[in-house]
């Protein structure tokens, strides 16, 4: 599996993503600068977390209009797998590849902690190494992760199986206090209709190594490795 990590001014999880992809794929991911207009030929495009363009105007709004995003949107529409984590999820909603929007956390506080997620759909290239409804441990670190969609859009996301992950407790129960940011229906990540684009606020790349807290996140990259190699 060949992969690329997009780097914006203000990205700060790009190298974590690079390490996670290198470990799983055994190949060096290509780091692609936001000002480039050419994408290398890869199987997976990863848009990492961070504060692209200083979160000016809205999180992800500037990055969504950067030169490289036109090419990413084109490739996503042709079926190339795209993973957006944290700020990357915000960029994917801002550029229209994913529905809904990420708003300020309901608590108004930046939330940085480990959370549990239930796997809501394990029939995709991103999630096939998980059990359906399995609780997994990853971490969140964001101030604007409060997923919102209008009722009509939300019904479609829910009805079509586009919800990838929801925040839950360690037992996999969807309780209110397990939701760190006020996201509607506790949604932590969603797919596009074709299931080749995934956006999620939690960081799978930060749980890709036993030495730093766990490997549940790494299984997402292993799923991709299985599907795209």
């Amino acid at each position, binding site marked *: 599996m060949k992969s690329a990590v997009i780097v914006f001014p203000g990205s700060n999880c790009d190298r974590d993503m690079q390490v996670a992809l290198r470990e799983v794929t055994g190949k060096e991911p290509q780091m692609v600068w936001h000002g480039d207009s050419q994408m290398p030929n890869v199987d997976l495009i990863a848009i990492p977390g961070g504060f692209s363009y200083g979160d000016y*105007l*809205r999180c992800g*709004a500037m990055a969504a*209009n950067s030169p490289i995003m036109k090419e990413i949107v084109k490739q996503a529409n042709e079926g190339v797998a795209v993973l957006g984590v944290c700020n990357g999820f915000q960029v994917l*909603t*801002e550029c229209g590849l994913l*529905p*809904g*929007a990420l*708003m*300020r*956390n*309901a*608590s*108004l506080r930046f939330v940085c902690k480990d959370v549990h997620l239930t796997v809501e759909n394990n029939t995709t290239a991103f999630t096939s190494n998980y059990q359906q409804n399995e609780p997994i441990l990853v971490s969140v670190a964001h101030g604007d992760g409060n997923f*919102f*969609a*209008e009722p009509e*859009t939300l019904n479609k996301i829910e009805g079509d199986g586009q919800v990838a992950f929801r925040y839950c407790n360690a037992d996999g129960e969807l309780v209110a206090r397990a939701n760190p940011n*006020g996201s509607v229906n506790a949604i932590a990540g969603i797919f596009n209709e074709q299931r080749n684009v995934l956006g999620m606020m939690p960081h799978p790349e930060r749980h890709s190594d036993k030495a730093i807290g766990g490997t549940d996140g790494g299984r997402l990259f292993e799923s991709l490795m299985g599907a795209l190699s």
Partner: protein
Amino acid sequence: MMKARVFVTLKPAVLDPQGKAIQNALNGLGFDEAQSVRQGKVIDIELSGDDNSAVQSSVTEMCEKLLANTVIEDYRIEIL
């Protein structure tokens, strides 16, 4: 040269926790009459040209493409 002012606000159906926090602060200062607060952005733009309707349509396009996220925000344009 013309000037346009864009107001970007959250849609009425979208919760505004920042507005709520501002309201709580106002109430804490003794402004009990502040019953609801919603906050947003003001963006001032200077534009070349002098045709009102051309400026209006250009700023509308700016709002749709960048200045507002129409999933969660409304915008209103004033030509100054």
